[in-house]
């Protein structure tokens, strides 16, 4: 029942998105422009500051993710479907999971485009250890989205939603950013430092478990008026 509801919510979002690709294209191009802005800030004489490629990748994901989170729930608010969702005889936590999966999917697709872009622009050998990188990206994205989905859901009725979300989200997701960037940087070294990358993935996985549990736990009392 729980999984069914979660997948239904996911399917709903995917179907809506597939009609216009609005969220996907705008999120993707926002991420690309982020990468560009940082490139102009950090590239000197054609070469980038060391480790900056890793940083830029994760900053672009964080910023694009924040916007995507805001807009996912904006859509619900606009169509007033959030109340309908909450009134449905479905476990509320399943709604959270469905939304979470949607965001992770959206960000994953964006990352699939970002990684080659960053590799190209900064001559960063991101594909040296593709599996580890994928693990890092997945664990990090899930962690970021887990916290973000909860906060975005709660902020949906707030006027100051756009600025409040980053204010709440960034301090909590600092470990995700640190782990993601340091892990990616480890993989970008001349001889990729695999144990270090694995360590960061493990940290991210622990973060994901703890915070998804916390979110599931608090979603119900939070969404109750």
């Amino acid at each position, binding site marked *: 029942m729980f999984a069914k509801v979660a997948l239904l919510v996911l399917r709903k979002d995917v179907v809506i998105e597939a009609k216009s690709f609005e969220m996907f294209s705008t999120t993707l191009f926002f991420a690309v422009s982020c990468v560009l802005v940082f490139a102009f800030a950090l590239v000197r004489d054609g070469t980038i500051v060391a480790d900056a490629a890793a940083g830029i990748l994760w900053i672009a994901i964080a910023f694009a993710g924040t916007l995507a989170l805001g807009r996912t729930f904006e859509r619900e608010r606009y169509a007033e479907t959030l109340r309908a969702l909450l009134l449905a005889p479905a476990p509320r936590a399943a709604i959270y999971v469905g939304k979470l999966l949607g965001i992770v999917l959206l960000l994953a697709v964006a990352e699939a485009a970002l990684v080659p872009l960053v590799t190209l622009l900064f001559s960063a050998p991101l594909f040296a250890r593709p599996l580890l990188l994928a693990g890092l990206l997945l664990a990090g994205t899930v962690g970021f989205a887990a916290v973000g989905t909860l906060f975005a859901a709660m902020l949906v009725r707030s006027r100051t939603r756009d600025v409040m979300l980053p204010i709440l989200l960034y301090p909590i997701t600092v470990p995700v950013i640190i782990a993601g960037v340091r892990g990616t940087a480890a993989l970008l070294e001349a001889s990729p430092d695999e144990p270090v990358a694995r360590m960061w993935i493990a940290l991210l996985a622990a*973060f994901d478990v*703890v915070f998804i549990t916390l979110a599931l736990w608090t979603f119900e009392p939070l969404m109750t008026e």
Partner: protein
Amino acid sequence: MKKYFIPLLAVTTAMFAYAPIMIANAPFEASMGLVSKIFYFHVPSWFAMFTAVFICGIQSAMFLFKGKPTADRIAVSAAEVAVLFGLMGLVTGPLWGRKSWGIWWPWDARVTIALILELTFIAYLLVRKFGGPGSEKLAAALAIFGMFNVPFLYMSVNIWRTIHPKTSVVPALPTGMPGPFWFSVAAYLLLMTLLIQLRLQLEERRAALDALYLEEE
């Protein structure tokens, strides 16, 4: 609890009045000299801040899961007091650090974690003020998340950097220093309790006001 207020106030004032005397008489810490006396303001500030953060987190959980309005009032009071003591720590720290390490902000583990925790609780206060309907609950969730974040912050930021005096200055203090130090800690914790109580009174008055407004309608 109100009847403790006056004695608490008296004791706290006395302790704070006496503290400078104790601190002045404490022996100089060998490598840093006079400026290390900031230690008596800096470390107790953090003790107080962490305690307040802890109180806020626990009360937030109680509010969110048991729905007790008093828990919410204590949580917001504790959060404000935490931000206050955090600010004290964040200002006295660099003042000390500039002298002893040569830089204002060393970006090391402790300092960074402290800053992030401070930002988390400033966010708590902001969301309560500007977050729209239901923001008390969201703030409560934030406080809980913030508390659970501490071990992760500790691990990730630690691996990232470290130059701060290692975790325990305290047991290695030269003789003569522990006395004033623990005295300062006690004084700060009493001050923290006092301030939370005061702030709580404000919240309770506001609740009374709200009740009056509701009766009007």
